[in-house]
């Protein structure tokens, strides 16, 4: 698809709110952008298993242990259907995975921060999943059918995770002095990185305009961020948590909460690989991938032998 006529027809379908399906004609650039976004989303789900997995063996009750284990399992599931959805665009899962392990593909920078106390698990549920939901609710309306449907499904599970995280955080925030300290400290550490999850300011986001025109996204990074802050201010107040931003103020004119300067230097530094956990996360994922190679080879070899036996028998 390259002629102007074809591009125009494609844009008309988008503007009419039609969903683009795998076998439909689409501009090469649309396909590429989607592969980049969707696989990045999938990698984030997988790397995201690490900071939370860090607390499974130490969860403070069997119920909390099972909740966390189920959540981490859900993330593996999200990764799986996001990779499958990306494969509908002609990409191979293995190539995508190797591109973030050894190449230049990215995953969400939020997972390059450490989980220091159990309260971090609650805060990831509340803030990080909360931010993910804002983003994914928009993506559930994406113009690419398989991606929209994957996000719809993910949102349902994420909403559940967010609720669980928020409830447990509320409990800690009104618990013993030690629990309160852990809860507030975790919020202090995760608040700014969470705001960065929506990506750079619109003025610094080169892909945004194109993605919006193609209906892959329907809102800009800054719009989503403002929407998120508005919600979180209320939710924090309701459970007695303070958000670590002295400039947070309600703006009568805009009807939104104004917030302080996001530390963008830190954002770009973590994106480029210099964050507290970047190297460890990649090392852990590479290790799992490389250590798993003999298992995958065995499964392939066994399947081959079984096929040969079946052929011989018939």
């Amino acid at each position, binding site marked *: 698809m390259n002629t102007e006529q074809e591009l125009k027809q494609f844009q008309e379908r988008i503007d009419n709110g039609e969903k683009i399906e795998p076998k439909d004609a689409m501009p090469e650039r649309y396909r590429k952008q989607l592969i980049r976004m969707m696989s990045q989303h999938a990698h984030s789900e*997988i790397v995201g298993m690490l900071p939370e997995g860090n607390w499974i*063996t130490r*969860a403070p*009750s069997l119920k909390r242990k099972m909740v966390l284990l189920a959540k981490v399992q859900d993330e*593996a599931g999200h990764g799986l259907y996001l990779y499958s959805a990306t494969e509908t665009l002609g990409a191979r899962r293995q190539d995508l995975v190797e591109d973030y392990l050894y190449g230049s593909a990215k995953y969400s920078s939020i997972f390059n921060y450490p989980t220091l106390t159990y309260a971090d698990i609650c805060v990831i549920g509340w803030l990080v999943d909360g931010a993910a939901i804002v983003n994914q609710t928009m993506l559930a309306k994406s113009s690419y059918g398989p991606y929209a449907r994957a996000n719809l499904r993910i949102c349902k599970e994420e909403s559940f995770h967010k609720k669980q995280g928020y409830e447990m955080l509320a409990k800690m925030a009104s618990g013993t002095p030690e629990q309160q300290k852990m809860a507030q400290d975790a919020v202090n550490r995760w608040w700014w990185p969470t705001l960065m999850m929506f990506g750079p300011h619109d003025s610094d986001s080169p892909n945004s305009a194109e993605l919006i025109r193609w209906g892959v996204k329907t809102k800009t990074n800054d719009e989503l961020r403002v929407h998120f802050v508005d919600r979180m201010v209320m939710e924090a107040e309701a459970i007695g948590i303070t958000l670590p931003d002295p400039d947070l103020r309600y703006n009568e004119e805009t009807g939104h909460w104004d917030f302080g300067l996001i530390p963008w230097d830190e954002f770009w530094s973590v994106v480029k690989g210099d964050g507290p956990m970047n190297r460890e996360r990649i090392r852990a994922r590479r290790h*799992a991938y490389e250590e*798993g190679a*003999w298992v995958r080879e065995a499964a392939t070899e066994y399947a081959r032998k079984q096929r040969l036996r079946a052929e011989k028998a018939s």
Partner: protein
Amino acid sequence: MSTFDEIPKTQQEALRTVVLWLADDRLIHGHRLSEWAGHGPELEEDLALANMALDMIGHASSLYAYVAKLEGREEEDYHAYFRDDIDFTNCAMVELPRGDFAFTMARQFLFSVHAFLLYQALMDVLEDEELAGILKKHFKEIRYHLRHSGEWMRRLGDGTDESRERVQHALDDLWMYTGELFTSNAHIEATVRFEVFTDPATLHAPWMEMVRQVLDDATLTMPDQNQYMFDGARQGRHTEHLGRLLAEMQFLRRSYPDASWT
């Protein structure tokens, strides 16, 4: 003093003893499986391992709740968080470090065959309907674990040279911990006398048969039967690994005993 120096004197104590073994086995095994979260050899297996870990910890949780009820305790997972290693009665096999994928699957397989036979026998002898109902629910999942781990034994045994070598090695390493699944002692005899447990020795022959069948299919060799067998974990005489596992598992709950986490 370890609680398990005391031999059950009533039927209820005997029942409590048996349910605690079952629960401890499942909690500790589930813990080792949960260590795989995010580190599996492929995404599908990350899901399966987490699934089995969830099943096992779920089984343990329902069994601990049952014991807590017997004892009139409010805290359902008291036994998971507030006992020391000499009070745990899980078999030693489940506390060994997770090892590689071959070790994890070989352990899962040997354990699941035993769980399958043990649950069958228990569902036969148990009179307590509530407990029988709990076990019946677990049994469905145990069958899945058995199938899943059995399939992997075949894949790894009859896969590549490396996978065969790894899984054979795992079986050989694990074998000395299989003996105590079938040995008796004064506690077990008491539970058999009160008719809440089957003589574990009777499970040995069918266990060997089921294991042999899969190992044959998987072109693996049965480890040497006449070797030293570890014994005593059911009476709190564990390996050195359990203490560290519990230190990790219990630290937060024990550090703040007044805090609520439910």
